[in-house]
């Protein structure tokens, strides 16, 4: 007899916890439950900042080291294709929000910007999920996190201002978008990792590679707390936004899996590109959108991106995108 996850009945008897989600997801659920049950658990703000800095830097460094040690055939086409995807998803999201959801232009553009950009933590969970199942992927995928973070934000702002011209301090905004901590740490890490190469990176490996999953676990605990606070706003809106927050990642994930396969990525690489396309930013985008489109409600975009899409992706989405990528490859 084979159970639904592919484990035999005997394996399930000897390891009954095999059906539970990944430990990383369980950390997230612990944080979620703690906040919903009004526990006084809190991750200090300075620690949250430090963990975010570590994760961004570690992801950049690992990607940079891999870039230095792998042949980069076909990378140009993959970069161009991924950027095209990054510019297309927010336009589609905007059209759906504006015309199917009948949301105001500002809110549609702001939410589209969040979904056009990417979530670094969702990326980290996806690489962990693939690694724990022994599924290989192009080791330089961190490059695509850095590439895909910005286009969505730019498109979101442009869409808002095309419809309702307003003063945008483009200089200040460009500074905010391109010199935000996410981009600085990712690109900086990529550059340092690339310059160091595999051998000189060995000394940094215990901190930036071996401890990565443990740090990610603590970060996900904090994400659980934050998401639980965000769910309070969910009761106020209608049914459209929650539906969008689940349909959009599935549609964009499928598009990403298909595009990744067409661009010559492995199944694991296509699954990660799909995860990036499906994820929504909640670090870079909210700050940029708040400055560029002040009339948009941050509660709407954060409830959708953080309250629904983020948990959906880490629990259901990643395995789903991997399946779609496997189907696309076959």
């Amino acid at each position, binding site marked *: 007899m084979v159970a639904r996850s592919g484990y035999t009945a005997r394996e399930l008897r000897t390891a009954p916890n095999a059906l539970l989600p990944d430990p990383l997801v369980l950390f997230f659920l612990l944080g979620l439950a703690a906040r919903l049950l009004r526990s006084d658990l*809190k*991750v200090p*703000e300075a620690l*949250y900042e430090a963990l975010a800095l570590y994760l961004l830097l570690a992801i950049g460094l690992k990607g940079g080291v891999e870039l230095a040690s792998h042949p980069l055939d076909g990378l140009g086409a993959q970069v161009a294709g991924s950027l095209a995807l990054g510019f297309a998803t927010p336009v589609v999201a905007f059209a759906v929000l504006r015309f199917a959801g009948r949301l105001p232009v500002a809110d549609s553009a702001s939410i589209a910007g969040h979904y056009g950009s990417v979530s670094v933590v969702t990326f980290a969970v996806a690489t962990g999920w693939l690694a724990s199942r022994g599924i290989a992927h192009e080791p330089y995928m961190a490059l695509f996190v850095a590439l895909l973070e910005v286009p969505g934000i730019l498109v979101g702002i442009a869409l808002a201002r095309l419809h309702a011209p307003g003063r945008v301090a483009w200089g*200040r905004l460009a500074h905010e978008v391109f010199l935000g901590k996410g981009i600085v740490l990712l690109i900086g890490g990529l550059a340092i990792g690339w310059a160091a190469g595999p051998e000189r990176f060995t000394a940094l490996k215990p901190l930036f590679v071996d401890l990565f999953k443990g740090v990610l676990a603590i970060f996900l605990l*904090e994400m659980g*707390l*934050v998401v639980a*606070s965000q769910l*309070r*706003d969910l009761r106020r809106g209608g049914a459209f936004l929650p539906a969008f927050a689940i349909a959009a990642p599935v549609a964009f994930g499928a598009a990403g899996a298909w595009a990744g396969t067409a661009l010559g990525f492995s199944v694991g690489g296509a699954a990660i590109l799909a995860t990036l396309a499906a994820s929504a930013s*909640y*670090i870079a985008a*909210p*700050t940029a959108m*708040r*400055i560029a489109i*002040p*009339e948009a409600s*941050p509660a709407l975009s*954060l409830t959708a991106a953080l309250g629904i899409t983020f948990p959906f992706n880490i629990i259901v989405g990643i395995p789903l995108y991997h399946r779609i990528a496997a189907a696309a490859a076959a």
Partner: protein
Amino acid sequence: MDTHPRKLLVIIAEAALERSLVADARRLGAQGYTVHDVRGGGRHGTREGDWEADRSIEMKVIATEAVAEAIARHVLATYCADYSVTMFLADAQVLRPEKFS
């Protein structure tokens, strides 16, 4: 002790506004300012300051009545429609008037 009357302007706002508020206050004549990270709640909910988009700041400016009111008017006109802002003025006594023009 010789004291001199000035106005204390306190602005509590979303952290996203910090840079703009500082630049505006300087431009409108404030010689100095102080910013704290804070958390709190109001009619529309709470801001716990757990992460980037949930942070709030409190900015204090001590200045002459004219400068403090000019900053307050500018903030009211520019940000209050779209952002969470709480603002008040109070009387203050300073010891070195040349620091608070």
